C-alpha cells in the first residue's frame, strides 16, 4: 500500500492542515485591518488537498503552485515565519520582500513558487519532470492548478507534453467551483476537469477534496505510479474555498449559505478529527495540543513579521541576474 498512515503521519497531517487553516484565518483577520499590502488569496477550506498530496513528497520533488499558494507552501515545508514576513513585505521574508503572497517560493525545498499567472505552472512542471527523467531520478513534479487554469492553453499543452514525454508529473486540478467570480459550471465545458485526461492519454481521477484520506490515497497511487515511470495523472480534487477569490471579495456570487453549509457538513479538519478520534487512532488531547502549538506559531510569526525590517532601497536593484 502506497503509504501507511502511522500515528506520527496522522499527527503530521493534522498539524499541516491546522497550520494552513490558522495561517489563512489570521491573514484574513489581519488583512481586514489594512496592514497587509497587495493581493492575498487564501487557501482555507482546501487544506486536505495540499496536505494529502505533499505528504508523499520529499524536498527533491517539485511542486508548482497557484496564486492561492500558501497551503501548498506550508505543506511542502516552507518556513511559516518566512512566509508571514514575506506577505507583510519584510526583508526577512522567504523572498526578501520581493515576491509577496503570490510568489512565495523555495527551490531548495522543491517549491517552484506560487504563481500570479493562471496556468503558468503547467509547462514549468513538465520541465522539472523532464529534468528528473533525464537525470534518472525517481522524483515527481506536481502542478497544482484551479478550475480557472484548467481552461488555459498552457495546461493543455502541459498535459499533452507530459504524456508525449511520459513524465513523472501529476496535475492536480483543485476545483473549488469558482474561477474568480465565475462558476466552473459555466466555464468548464465538460464540468469534470478529470474527463479531459482521457483526451491526453492519461488517467483522470476525481477525489473528494474535503477528505484527507481520499486525497492522500489517490495521490499516493498516482505519485507511486509516476515514480516508477508509469507516467502522468490528472487528479481532480473537488473542494471549496471558504474565503473570497482575494481578500476583500464579498463573494456575492455564491449562494447565501453555501460556505456555511460546506463548513458544517464537510470541513476537512473537523471530519479528519472525528474520524481519527472515532477510530481510536488519535485522542482529542493530542489534537488539542497541536492546536495550541500552531496557534502559538502563527502568533509568533505575525509578531515577528510586524517588527521585522522592510527591505532597504538598495535591495531594489539586486537579484535581477546572477551576473550582469
Amino acid at each position, binding site marked *: 500500500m502506497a503509504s501507511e498512515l502511522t500515528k506520527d503521519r496522522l499527527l503530521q497531517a493534522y498539524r499541516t492542515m491546522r497550520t494552513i487553516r490558522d495561517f489563512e484565518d489570521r491573514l484574513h483577520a489581519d488583512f481586514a485591518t489594512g496592514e497587509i499590502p497587495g493581493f492575498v488569496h487564501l487557501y482555507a477550506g482546501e487544506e486536505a488537498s495540499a496536505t494529502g498530496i505533499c505528504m508523499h513528497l520529499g524536498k527533491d520533488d517539485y511542486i508548482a503552485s497557484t496564486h492561492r499558494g500558501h497551503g501548498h507552501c506550508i505543506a511542502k515545508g516552507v518556513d511559516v515565519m518566512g512566509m508571514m514576513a514575506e506577505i507583510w513585505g519584510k526583508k526577512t521574508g522567504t523572498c526578501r520582500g520581493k515576491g509577496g503572497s503570490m510568489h512565495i517560493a523555495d527551490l531548495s525545498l522543491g517549491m517552484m513558487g506560487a504563481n500570479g499567472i493562471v496556468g*503558468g505552472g*503547467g*509547462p514549468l512542471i513538465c520541465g522539472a519532470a523532464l529534468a528528473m527523467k533525464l537525470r534518472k531520478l525517481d522524483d515527481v*513534479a506536481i502542478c497544482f492548478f484551479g478550475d480557472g487554469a484548467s481552461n488555459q492553453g498552457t495546461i493543455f499543452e502541459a498535459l499533452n507534453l507530459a504524456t508525449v514525454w511520459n513524465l513523472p508529473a501529476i496535475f492536480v486540478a483543485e476545483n473549488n467551483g469558482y474561477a474568480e467570480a465565475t462558476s466552473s459550471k459555466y466555464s468548464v465545458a465538460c464540468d469534470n476537469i478529470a474527463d479531459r485526461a482521457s483526451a491526453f492519454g492519461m488517467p483522470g481521477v476525481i477525489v473528494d477534496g474535503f477528505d484527507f484520506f481520499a486525497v492522500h490515497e489517490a495521490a499516493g497511487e498516482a505519485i507511486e505510479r509516476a515514480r516508477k515511470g508509469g507516467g502522468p495523472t490528472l487528479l481532480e480534487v473537488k473542494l471549496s474555498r471558504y474565503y473570497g477569490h482575494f481578500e476583500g471579495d464579498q463573494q456575492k456570487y455564491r449562494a447565501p449559505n453555501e460556505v456555511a453549509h460546506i463548513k458544517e457538513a464537510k470541513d476537512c479538519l473537523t471530519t479528519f478529527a472525528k474520524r481519527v478520534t472515532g477510530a481510536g487512532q488519535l485522542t482529542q488531547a493530542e489534537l488539542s495540543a497541536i492546536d495550541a502549538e500552531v496557534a502559538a506559531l502563527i502568533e509568533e510569526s505575525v509578531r515577528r513579521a510586524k517588527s521585522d525590517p522592510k527591505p532597504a532601497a538598495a535591495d531594489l536593484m539586486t537579484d535581477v541576474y546572477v551576473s550582469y
Partner: protein
Amino acid sequence: MARKITYQQAINEALAQEMARDSSVIVMGEDNHGGEGSPGEQDAWGGVLGVTKGLYHKFPGRVIDTPISESGFIGAAIGAATNGLRPVAELMFVDFMGVCFDQIFNQAAKFRYMFGGKAETPVVIRTMYGAGFRAAAQHSQCLYSLFTHIPGLKVVMPATPYDAKGMLIQAIRDNDPVIFMEHKMLYTLEGEVPEESYTVPFGEANVVREGDDITVVTLGRMVHLADQAAQAMQKNGVHVEVIDLRTTSPLDEATVLESVERTGRLVVVDESNPRCSMASDIAGLVAQKAFGALKAPIEQVTAPHVPPPFSDALEDIYIPTVADIQGAIGRVMEFRR
C-alpha cells in the same frame, strides 16, 4: 589563419562542444532532429534549417523534439533549468514568441527577483529573426527590443560566425535566461572560428571598424551593411567607427558613449521597426548622456513602421540598405548649424 566555417556551423559546433562538456546541456525544440515517431529517418531535419543536424546521433536522448506547443516546451525548458539541466530550447522563429511570451517574461525572467535571489534559471532560448527570406510578416521580425525591455532576460544577437559560437557557449554557461537571436540571413556567412571552445562575454560591444569622424551603432545583420557603408565612406575621407552592440541586454553603454564623445556624430542602424526600438533606445541614451559632444542630430536607419512585407519588391525596400546607411552618414557629416 583559423579555419573558416559558417554561422550555422558555428552554432552547431558550440552546441556539440557544450553538450560534450556538460551532460546537463540538452537541446529541445520543434524538429530539432525531426522524424520523431515517424517510420522514416531520425534526424531527418536537424532543425528547420539544419542548424542542429547531427547532434541527435552524437548525444542520444539529449536532443528532444517537441510538439508544436511553444508555451509548453519553452516553459518546460525553463522548468528544467530550475532543476539541474541547462536546456537550449529553440523557438523556431522569434515571431512565435506571441504564443509563449508568458513563460519567458513572467516566469523565467522574474524567478530570481521574485524569489529573493534564490533561483537560477540557466536556460537559453535560441531563436531565428530578421527579414530577407521573403518570409513575410509572421516570420521576419526582429523583436529583440521586446525582450530587451524585460529585466531578468539577457538578449544577444551575434553578427559573425566567431561571435555566434563564443556567445552561444557563453549563453549556455550563463546562469541567467538568455535569448539568443540568430539572423536567418547570416546562417551561410563564413568566417574564421577557432576549433577550440571559447566564450565571448556579454555586455561588450565589438568595435568592428575604428574611425574618428562619426559613430555608427548597429547590431545583428546590419553590422555587415554598416561596415560596407563605412568602407565606402572611407573613399570620401570619412572615417566611420562601426560598433556592433552584440548584446542589447546587458548593453555596453560605455563603448557607445566613449565613441560618440570622440566623434560627436551618431547614426544608429537597426533592422527593426522604429518605435520603441533599439535605435530609439541608443539615440535616447546618447542624447541624454553625451549631449554635449553631439555636433549634429542623431540619425536612425530602420525599417519603416510597417510589418515585414512578402513581395521582394517591397521587402527589399523594407530592409535598410547600404545606401540608406551611407545617406544617413552623409547627412550627419554635412550637417551645419
